[in-house]
């Protein structure tokens, strides 16, 4: 059994600890905001935060989150979300949950990031639609 915190709630998972965190989130906890793009750690669509650090949930075995704090897009509440809407930073939306979580980590650690800081923080999150400009503008607009 794996016990962890998911979006502030204590949860437990009875299945095999070798399943991907991505699959358990989507299939067992119905937290389908976490997306699968590549399944190989390249695209960041499956990004979640574990103890505040951004990771690709397709590379994590669910047994590895025992006792940890997992935050998915369903648990995020950030001005970034409204900023993405206002700047048109989402098109198909597949990359958006991961982008928001990675950007959230940046804003927690750097209050006024530069465009290069944003590019570096989001380097592990690929977007096939927006060309990134609007995403970067949306994140910059949330710097205080």
């Amino acid at each position, binding site marked *: 059994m794996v016990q962890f915190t998911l979006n502030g709630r204590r949860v437990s998972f009875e*299945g*095999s600890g*070798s399943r991907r965190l991505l699959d358990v989130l989507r299939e067992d906890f119905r937290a389908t905001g976490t997306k699968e793009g590549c399944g190989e750690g390249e695209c960041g669509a499956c990004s979640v935060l574990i103890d505040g650090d951004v*990771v690709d949930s397709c*590379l994590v075995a669910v*047994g*590895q989150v025992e006792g940890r704090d997992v935050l998915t897009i369903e648990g995020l509440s950030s001005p970034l979300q409204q900023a993405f809407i206002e700047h048109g930073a989402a098109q198909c939306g597949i990359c958006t949950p991961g982008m928001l979580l990675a950007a959230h980590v940046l804003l927690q650690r750097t209050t006024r990031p530069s465009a290069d800081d944003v590019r570096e923080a989001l*380097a*592990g999150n690929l977007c096939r639609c927006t060309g990134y400009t609007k995403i970067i503008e949306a994140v910059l607009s949330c710097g205080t």
Partner: protein
Amino acid sequence: MRDVTYLRPKDLQDAVQLSRTTPGCRPLAGGTDLMVMLHARTLRPAPRAILDVWSLSELKGVRRVDGMLEIGAAESYTGIIRSAEAQQHLPALVAAARTIGAAQIQNRGTLGGNLANASPAGDTLPVLLAYDAVVVTDRRSIAIDRFFTGYRHTALQSDELITAVRFPLDRQVVFRKVGTRAAQAISKVVIAVCRQPARVAIGSVAEVPLRASGAEAALASGDVAGAIAAVTADIRPIDDVRSTATYRQAVTQNVLRELLRQ
């Protein structure tokens, strides 16, 4: 993947015991190589169990041991980048860690995983060679220049766990990686160089990360031009989808020239 048993050892001793007694057992650290292969079912033989070493406190941290700097095998690249001791004594390793993947990969990827995976393109591996690092396992110490035995083959036994990597404190090593873009790109050429003692270590130019012995001999006698000339005979690059062998020869010489000018 549901048929693979997940094992969470309570400490290093338990991990060593489980590794020795569980058939078909494979260590799992950050998962950035292994989880991809598990999911794609490309591992032969297919593992029957994964042994999670990621959370073992004995495999974490950066510390001084016997006048050397020791980095836990399961310490993340992010942990290495943030370590004041690593920044001070191993700037080339910190530089290499910063080029690995993006945040998601740096938060999970480890030296133990990079070593055991033994890709010729593993970015920390030439750096470890230039530092004459020592790989510490559950049963012995292995000098890094004896660690890589063939294409993705290492001196490790099948049930052997890497626990740490040790580095001398007084080496001046410089590092350069040539890839296609700043983040998340597999290397075309990686070079780490130390002047004293002379070390020229190169990745992505042969079936293993290697020490360029001809270039090192020239460098040891102070012959920089000779080292740059000799390096092409030391390496065995291939043509693949990313680059041609001729290109890799030229880039290796250019990067070495640049590093030796510093």
